[in-house]
């Protein structure tokens, strides 16, 4: 390969990763608005500040601790070398591949606190949540990432030698979404239900504040998701159109199943799209678009019925439904790749259902453990829940000293 060509390739990789990183960064605005629209008005500011703060903390933690844990590459060198660092080596003409790769993967890591945020909304203390997020993006998540995608290959090697294929998770149904959803579960349980959610054992339902904002959040997430999945290729030449189209079909499956099985409930239709996108991450490079359609559709159903089961039967007050959405649909995605990825279902093959199940289950178990550990310790020490007065007042006033619509608060303005 000649030099100008090589240079073009470096530039292509840089652009590819930047576009991906920016798209997934924008998804965090989606997380913010999904929560803004779903919580009551008195907790909207908190939703916005949480997501942005978690992003800030995640960036520092993941660059300094997380990425080195997962991939064995660190950034303690001067800017000139950093620019040329490519797969751990200083290559002349490099355009910052490794730091961009880290940026792109940070956008995944930062999903963990963003996912949890939606479950613990309206009653969680601010700083303990920031702290927990830091632990997850700095240590917890990168540990699992290192095993599935990174430098600690023992499990993957074993799966490969035992079942013919290692655990396949192209864009993180399991590594990212299921991880976030299953960490959130113990957090939500340890936190307890919001005041007024059940009164004398009767399920009361706390109304959402703003469906247009919720829809906006959902749209931002859906658009950014194409970066999430497509740029998971990791470099420009590895781009696959199939990934984009499978993401599309899974999303559409989620929309249509959500539409039909919920009588056009706006919450389920918009979240159905997300459930579909979550479920397809794992297998987006190997399944057929029509397979993707069912992966997404079933993902939406799992969310719909999982959410009802969680909230009405288990009485777990998961505000945005992040456990059924990211946890259950994500786990389904990991397993589904082992089914719909098979050649006889039109897939690319090269995937083992057993490996998929082992990988998926290990992710969920790991997540519940670190969730229990971190939130349990926080609950024992500094406490994780706002006091009753603060919760009634709303986290906006209690934490941030301002409501979401200050002008309205002042009658005479």
């Amino acid at each position, binding site marked *: 390969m000649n030099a100008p060509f090589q240079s073009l390739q470096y530039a292509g990789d840089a652009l590819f990763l930047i576009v991906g990183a920016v798209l997934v960064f924008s998804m965090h605005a989606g997380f913010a608005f999904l929560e803004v629209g779903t919580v009551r008005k008195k907790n909207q500011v908190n939703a916005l500040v949480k997501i942005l703060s978690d992003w800030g903390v995640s960036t520092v933690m993941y660059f300094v601790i997380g990425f080195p844990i997962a991939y064995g590459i660190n950034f303690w060198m001067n800017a000139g070398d950093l620019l040329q660092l490519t797969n751990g080596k200083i290559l002349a003409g490099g355009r910052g591949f490794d730091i961009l790769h880290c940026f792109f993967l940070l956008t995944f890591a930062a999903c963990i606190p963003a996912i949890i945020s939606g479950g613990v909304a309206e009653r969680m203390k601010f700083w303990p949540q920031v702290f927990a997020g830091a632990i997850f993006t700095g240590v917890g998540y990168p540990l699992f990432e290192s095993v599935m995608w990174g430098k600690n290959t023992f499990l993957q090697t074993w799966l490969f030698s035992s079942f013919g294929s290692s655990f396949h998770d192209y864009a993180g149904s399991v590594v990212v979404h299921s991880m976030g959803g299953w960490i959130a579960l113990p957090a939500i349980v340890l936190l307890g239900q919001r005041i007024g959610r059940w009164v004398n054992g009767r*399920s009361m*339902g706390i*109304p*959402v504040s703003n469906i247009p904002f919720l829809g906006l959040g959902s749209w931002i997430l859906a658009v950014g998701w194409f970066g999430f999945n497509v740029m998971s290729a990791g470099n420009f030449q590895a781009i696959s159109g199939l990934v984009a189209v499978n993401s599309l079909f899974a999303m559409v499956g989620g929309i249509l199943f959500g539409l039909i099985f*919920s*009588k056009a*409930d*706006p*919450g*389920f239709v918009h*979240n159905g799209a997300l459930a579909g996108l979550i479920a397809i991450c794992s297998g987006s490079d190997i399944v057929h678009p029509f397979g993707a359609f069912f992966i997404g559709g079933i993902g939406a159903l799992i969310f*719909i019925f999982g*959410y*009802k089961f969680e*909230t*009405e039967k288990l009485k777990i007050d998961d505000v945005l*439904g992040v456990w059924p959405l990211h946890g259950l649909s994500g786990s389904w995605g990991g397993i589904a790749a082992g089914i719909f990825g098979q050649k006889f279902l039109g897939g690319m093959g090269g995937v083992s259902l057993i490996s998929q199940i082992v990988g998926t289950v290990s992710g969920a178990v790991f997540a519940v453990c670190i969730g229990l550990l971190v939130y349990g310790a926080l609950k024992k020490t500094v406490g994780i829940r706002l006091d009753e007065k603060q919760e009634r007042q709303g986290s906006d006033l209690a934490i941030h000293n301002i409501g979401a619509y200050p002008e309205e608060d002042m009658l005479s303005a």
Partner: protein
Amino acid sequence: MKYIVAIIQPSRLEAVKEALSTIEVFRLTVTEAQGIGRQRGHTEVYRGHEYQINFVRKVKLEIAVDDKYVEPTIEAIVNAARTGAEGKIGDGKIFIMPLEDVVRIRTRERGSEAL
């Protein structure tokens, strides 16, 4: 002087206002209100959970009038505020209360003149 409070269906506000104009009652104060009464609220469903909305949107009119205007005012409201020929449940009520005095802020006029 009387202080008349009328609770009506929001969709009838425009008609009531016009009916009042024709009997030369041009001044009133309007607030949005929620009614609880025989007319039932509705149920909303979001992500499978049902919410009972027990209130019905209403509009509340407050009209201070001279005694001789009381009956025409009531008449105008009743005629214009009914929905359908027969009236429907939820069409509202008119309450008549004694009013002892009135002051026009701009001019300090008092009593009937200030109405």
